[in-house]
């Protein structure tokens, strides 16, 4: 009774091999270029809004005192001083004594992939079954009901974030960039047309995870050997018209063609320097080093290679490769003229990226590196947007960009300040003054504390 199905499969294989090599290559390239699981995100309705009288940080280093920010139809319409007229039909919000910034962006989050509650059944962030898994996509693990998204919005003013696979593997898989708008599906959160990134990891994690299984890599030299061979295999795949489609190699080919960015978890200065040379050897570019606690030792090298450092303010000591972490890291990177991003990698830290940036700024100031507040705001807005490839659309307050905006109830670099209102694409999705205007995930319905201020 099963014979017919077997012959059908055989027929399919035959017909495939009968295709011309050119047709097959074309098919492979077209499939790679397709964007399956497309974004279904649509901005929610908003009202034309004028924020008037605020201190405005535009995310590009600019500061306007007594400023005006206008947005309508999901886009920023105007950013200016007190002389900017508020057009008719705009809701006017008195923002005197308050501050306005672009929506906060986290370039390193595992929300949805490692959600709350942190139970095994929901732990989907590391496909730690092979040292390279460029075939896995973080979006296929995202649980949209992770309550962490709601806290990042309400307490952190986070409007966009990149979800990365974990760092167990040398090549952990594809990232996904999300709008922090609740949705039933990950497609409903996907940032439209954001480029993908490949998550890579150097150092302790991959060699520990696989070394403890008695397999390669068990050393840092093993890390590089596996990486280099994998890149060469991807190049061969790109050149091989007869190759069967390989989802993992599609991702690597995307990197080598420049369509997919590289986000590389790497702590130590010497290892970052080696990765930079590997990228040159294999002809790809690293967009940002993540965690990068030793970037302060090689700020010049990072500037020359145009690579951002996504860092914590002052995490140190929790693992060997973090032993040389110092609070002045971000300021010293900035002093060297290299790009700074403050990232979270943490469901709590993502609620306070503004505070982490302020701590990093203060540590610099104490050694004579005076970085203006407006530039510090770049670390959590424009710079992460740049490293994620979405800076043309968000990350700064510029006319025509997405109206991703936070109104803070005070100086965002003060511990005493919280987001008061948050708009994403012009839709008000959090209002501290309106208890109903805060998201509550399905998971929290009917639980103690449902809808509570968090």
């Amino acid at each position, binding site marked *: 009774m099963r014979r017919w199905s077997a012959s059908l499969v055989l027929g399919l294989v035959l017909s495939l091999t009968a295709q011309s090599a050119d047709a097959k290559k074309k098919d492979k390239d077209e499939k790679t270029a397709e964007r399956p699981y497309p974004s279904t995100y649509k901005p929610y309705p908003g009202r034309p809004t004028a924020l008037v009288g605020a201190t405005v940080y535009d995310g590009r280093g600019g500061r306007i005192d007594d400023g005006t920010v206008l947005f309508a139809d999901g886009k920023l319409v105007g950013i200016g001083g007190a002389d900017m007229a508020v057009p008719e039909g705009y809701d006017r919000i008195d923002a005197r004594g308050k501050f306005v910034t672009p929506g906060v962006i986290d370039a390193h989050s595992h929300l949805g992939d490692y959600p709350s*509650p942190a139970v095994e059944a929901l732990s989907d962030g590391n496909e730690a079954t092979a040292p390279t898994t460029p075939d896995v996509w973080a979006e296929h693990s995202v649980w949209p009901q992770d309550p962490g998204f709601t*806290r990042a919005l309400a307490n952190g003013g986070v409007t966009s974030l990149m979800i990365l696979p974990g760092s167990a593997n040398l090549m952990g898989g594809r990232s996904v960039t999300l709008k922090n708008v609740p949705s039933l599906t990950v497609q409903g959160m996907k940032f439209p047309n954001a480029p993908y990134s490949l998550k890579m990891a150097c150092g302790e994690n991959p060699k520990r995870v696989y070394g403890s299984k008695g397999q390669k890599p068990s050393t840092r030299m093993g890390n590089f050997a596996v990486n280099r061979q994998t890149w060469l295999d991807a190049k061969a795949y790109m050149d091989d018209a007869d190759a069967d489609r390989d989802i993992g190699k599609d991702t690597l080919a995307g990197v080598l063609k420049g369509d997919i960015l590289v986000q590389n978890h790497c702590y130590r200065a010497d290892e970052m320097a080696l990765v930079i040379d590997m990228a040159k050897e294999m002809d790809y570019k690293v967009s940002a080093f993540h965690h990068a606690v030793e970037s302060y030792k090689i700020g010049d090298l990072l500037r020359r290679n145009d690579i951002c450092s996504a860092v914590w303010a002052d995490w140190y000591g*929790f693992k060997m490769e973090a032993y040389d972490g110092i609070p002045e890291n971000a300021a010293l990177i900035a002093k060297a003229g290299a790009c700074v991003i403050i990232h979270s990698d943490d469901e709590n830290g993502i*609620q*306070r990226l503004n505070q982490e940036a302020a701590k990093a700024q203060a540590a610099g100031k104490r050694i004579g590196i005076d970085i203006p507040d407006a530039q510090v705001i770049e670390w959590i807005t424009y710079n992460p947007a740049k490293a994620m490839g979405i800076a043309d659309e968000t990350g700064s307050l510029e006319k025509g960009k997405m109206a991703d905006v936070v109104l803070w109830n005070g100086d965002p670099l003060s*511990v005493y300040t919280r987001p008061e209102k948050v708009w994403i694409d012009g839709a008000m999705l959090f209002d501290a003054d309106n208890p109903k205007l805060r998201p509550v995930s399905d998971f929290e319905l009917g639980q103690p504390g449902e809808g509570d201020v968090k």
Partner: protein
Amino acid sequence: MSRRAQFAAALAALALPFAAQAQDLAITNATVATGDGSAPIEHANVVVQGGKVVAAGAGVPVPAGIPTVDGTGKWVTPGLFSAVTDLGLWDVEAVSESNDTEADGSPFNAALDVTPALNPASQHIAISRAGGVTRASVAAFNGNSIFAGQGAVIDLADDAGLVMKPRAFQFVELGEAGARLAGGSRVAAHVALRNALREAKELAALPAGSARQSDAMLTRPDAMALAKVLDGIEPLYVGVERASDIRAVLALKSEFPKMNLVLVGAAEGWLVAPEIAAAHVPVITMPLRDLPAEFEMLAATQSNVGRMKKAGVKVAIGMFTGGNQPRYAPQQAGNLVALTKLPGAAGLTWGEAFAAISSIPAEISGFAGKAGVLAPGAVGDVVLWDGDPLELSSAPQEVWIDGVKQPLENHQTRLRDRYKDLDRTYLPKAYDW
């Protein structure tokens, strides 16, 4: 002298206050927060003599001839007190050879005592000291038992004598973690706890030299350690988060009336705050946890501390372990002040928030009026800050412990100084020190 007595004597020697050269000093015209929960006082003076605080406040006279620091434009506080930390127990947390926080291969549990492992030269201590932390309690992590063993209270001075009080408390995990350790359920954890306390009681009642019952499950040292908990000599710190678990802990009070209980965690404490207050059980918690990180903390909210405080619970900020380090205490406290501006949230006043990282953890740790406060007779732990200590932009400029001015250099500051510039023209960076 028996070996045990020798050991005890050695530990007692270790616990002696280090007789360093305590300086007399006065800090004048500063904004002074005494740590007792009151609001900061502007243009105030602090006087330390003989290693102790003599006076603090506006108009406090400065004795003639005493070395004086001008505090104009600066803030002065008592040293921060961090409750429930892993200070001095690791160099690098994930490097197991350097980490003494847990012993899951040990046959012992309640008898484990962190004291001999404490390393005053750990960078973790030096970095915390530079953050204004001068005293702390140190707890072990659970290995293979619900009992983690006995913690100590330490000072963070740059000298060898860090132990203020060895065996200051016993730690037990109930809730989800305790359930796992006990064999799989909360039911098992509570049976394990009660059986252990029963065995401790029986051992304590045995005439010297007589044999224990043959079905004893605890080792003798473990049972001996728990006898001190039963007597209330060592407080029992209980790790729980869920409201129902807290109730189950409070119920132990009627069963074991002499036990001194302290709740550690209590993420859902606000749901049972009146009961905690009525039982006079203090709480040590990490306040900004606002996610249902586990099923036992579904009701977690940053308003937990504010609501418990309002209900009359004594609450300290603590639980600084691993990457979440004691020097972050001011940020945690400052965020609780921020909550007072947030509609629907419960926070703390500035004075209350600062007390939650100074006098209150000191009180819970057995040093009421002696640490974490600028009050006559308290230890001369003083921190001079360059601004509001709870604000992100502020940092300690000077730290005194027992009246002794402390070095604030450490591995981090040395790296910072080496890499302030990246110039390697004439010699490698390795020669820049």
